[in-house]
């Protein structure tokens, strides 16, 4: 049993404490926007925010996430208003298959919180998610667009 606070809501979850947070979020809580891609913290499809920082949830046990504020893609919009990164993604038609994009968006949202006007070098250092469709050119442009918006 673990007590997790996800998107502002605390709940008790019946899982072994060493279960990766990713699978607890997906299978026990039922939020499926957070994706599995590798299970070894390489691809970033499982990125969530833990106390505001981007974390690859496939490699963090549930026990390490207890008592912390977990935000998933489903909790990124506030009061029904999309996050500026989500808006930029829509305006710029970024996703192709879209599978990696929730993780990508979570990573970018965390970057913009730390660096509101990131340079290309900042983006290169912070955004290491894999996208097999190859949306990187649109991702970079949309990050700069989001940074320009209020």
């Amino acid at each position, binding site marked *: 049993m673990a007590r997790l606070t996800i998107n502002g809501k605390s709940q008790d979850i019946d899982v072994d404490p060493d279960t990766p947070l990713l699978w607890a979020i997906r299978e026990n809580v039922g939020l499926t926007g957070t*994706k599995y891609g590798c299970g070894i913290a*390489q*691809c970033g499809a499982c990125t969530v925010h833990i106390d505001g920082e981007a974390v690859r949830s496939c490699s963090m046990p549930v026990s390490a996430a207890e008592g912390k504020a977990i935000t998933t893609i489903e909790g990124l919009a506030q009061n029904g208003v999309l996050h500026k990164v989500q808006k930029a993604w829509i305006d710029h038609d970024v996703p*192709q298959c879209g599978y990696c994009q929730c993780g990508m968006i979570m990573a970018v949202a965390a970057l913009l919180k730390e660096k509101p006007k990131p340079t290309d070098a900042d983006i290169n250092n912070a955004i290491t998610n894999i996208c*097999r469709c*190859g*949306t990187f050119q649109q991702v970079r442009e949309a990050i700069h667009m989001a940074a320009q918006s209020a």
Partner: protein
Amino acid sequence: MNHIPKINRRSFVVGAAATGGGLAIGLNLPFGGPQVVRAQDGSPELTAWVVIRPDDTVVIRMARSEMGQGTITGLAQLVAEELECDWSKVTYEYPTPGQSLARKRAWGDFSTGGSRGIRMSHEYVRKGGATARMMLIQAAANEWKVPAAECTAANSVITHGPSGRNTTFGRVAEAAAKLEPPKEVPLKDPKDWKIAGKSVKRLDTVDKVTGKQVYGFDLRLPGMLNAAIKECPVFGGKVKSFEAAKVAGMKGVRKVVQVGDSAVAVVADTWWQAKTALDALPVVFDEGENAKVSSASIATMLEAGLTAEQAFVGNQNGDAKAALGGAAKKIEAVYAYPFQNHVCMEPMNATARYTTDKCEVWVPTQNGEDALAYVLSASGLPADKCDVYKINLGGGFGRRGAYQDYVTQAVLIAKQIPGTPVKLLWSREEDMRQGHYHPIMQCKLVGGFDANNNLTALHMRLSGQSILAAVRPQVVDKDKGRDALVFQGLAEPALLGNEHSFGYSIPNLLIDHAMRNTHVPPGFWRGVNINQNCIFIECFMDELAQAVGQDELEFRRKLMAKHPKNLAVLNAVAERVGWGKPAPQGVYRGLAHMKAFNSYVAAVAEISIEGGGNRIKIHRIVAATDPGHAVNPAQIDRQVAGSFVYGLSALFYQECTIKGGRVVEENFDTYDSMRIAQMPRVESIIMPSGGSDPWGGVGEPTICVAAPAVLNAYFKATGKRLRTLPLKNEKITLV
């Protein structure tokens, strides 16, 4: 990628006809007539492609699968263009393969591979839209008792010109659906397009940025269990034994089952529980003789093919061997391309529910009909008791089309737990081990010049795997053992329907293939055989030009006089980068071109090197595409840019090494993929030449020019010719 499902089409149609009943409507008759066919929500269908709701919403229904390439949006644009509907009211749905078969394949081919989504359906979907528009106009005219010729449709509104009266599609759809469809359905000239040809936004973006989009492995059904699977990692091996009792008591575990003769699965409440138990499950495999095979033994076999007597011919004119024998100068080189995995971001999965009376499967698939064929075969039930529900794909790239082994597995598991839906998900490691890989190929090229440095002869000997021999052996048998697809991009025009014709004229030419198949299963990998063929021919073209001290572009141009469309894309990229004028200090250029999937593509890469050539920085790529017609330029631009991510990842990082008969690389730590930091600026030039030639595809062709353009630039920078992929083996990285 000529698809013929594992189960003969005829057996499908027979099975479907038995159940067709009121839905069995002639293949060439759009619906119409007194019996209105209704969508699930009760709205009337005008044609297979068009359902109109009373609120004017237009539901466009497509057989092809959306996997990121934008096909659904493009096809909807084509339907909407002819329908004259309000684009903001368009939404889309997938028909099921079972519905389509019951209606004599009303939606056409489901296969979404070979870059065919738009190019091979544009005509019938446009007719589907135009037919519906004509029926809607007729219905309004009937109501007003005026000639239809006096009425026009625009933006989902029908107007009677003389009186100015108007109505909406939603108001007349019910009456229109009862009309006989017109027999003559003229289509617009593309120059008059207002929705097609424009960079409208995709129809499927919003849910992808909020987490709401349901991919195959997101599916949740009431009472569903989850399965993790392990198949013998040596291809062709079998399960010898496993000790289910060792994991039966683990948390959540419901059942341990054998799947076919080669795999074992654990079924549990959650997938993580299933995977944890599977990792703990003792399984012994009988690996068989294949366990002795390695990359080295495969390479030796292919090397022998380079000089073998017997080979299948794919392109020939003059007498290349004699001309090479008498050449004043000869150049020779050997290239090699490895096994590669597709690595879709979403690992393979399928959800199945089986009872003795019905088998249903939910699956992200590039071909719903093929998926259904797998369901029939695995369930043993007839077509009228099976169906497939397509779900969004987290990438396809050719892995989710011809081979749907995960569908078979899901059904075989579900059969052992009747009535309970079971979702099978492969781990990334399983996905890496159980691929249907990019075929392995070597190529020996020999070019000959006369005393005036004119290229007089070329022999290109391919040696390696045939995809078709594994996937469609009957097609290979019919062609007396030849796999014509091996010659994609190199073929003589009569072969492969001129879709993949060779772009050069050489007086004495021989391109042939020594088929050398391995136990490692090959599959269609985005771009298929053009990936290696373009490297072979386009790098060697540079080698030939350099051997006689000629400019690489000028050398090609002399061989391309009879290939004006090839030349046009090559000229376009050369002009954009200023080929022939000095590049910025330290920047080197390389070019490549190809005709594939009926499109013409070319690229120039601009690179610089660091660390004595160990690090490559790609500054810019200019890429031209002529697909004949451009339905959505913004989406083409994205496919072109994305193609470089796919092609450059393959060039730098990706090889599936074989050791002990199995794939060594099991995850992204050893099988890397490009990140944003390595992404060069890609400038696309979209230059549709129009006309009445068959349309070209967009999703695949550009991938093949990525590697040769960079390799050719690398030679200019270093004087070193790289002929074997991936470059990580040469300790060369992309920065």
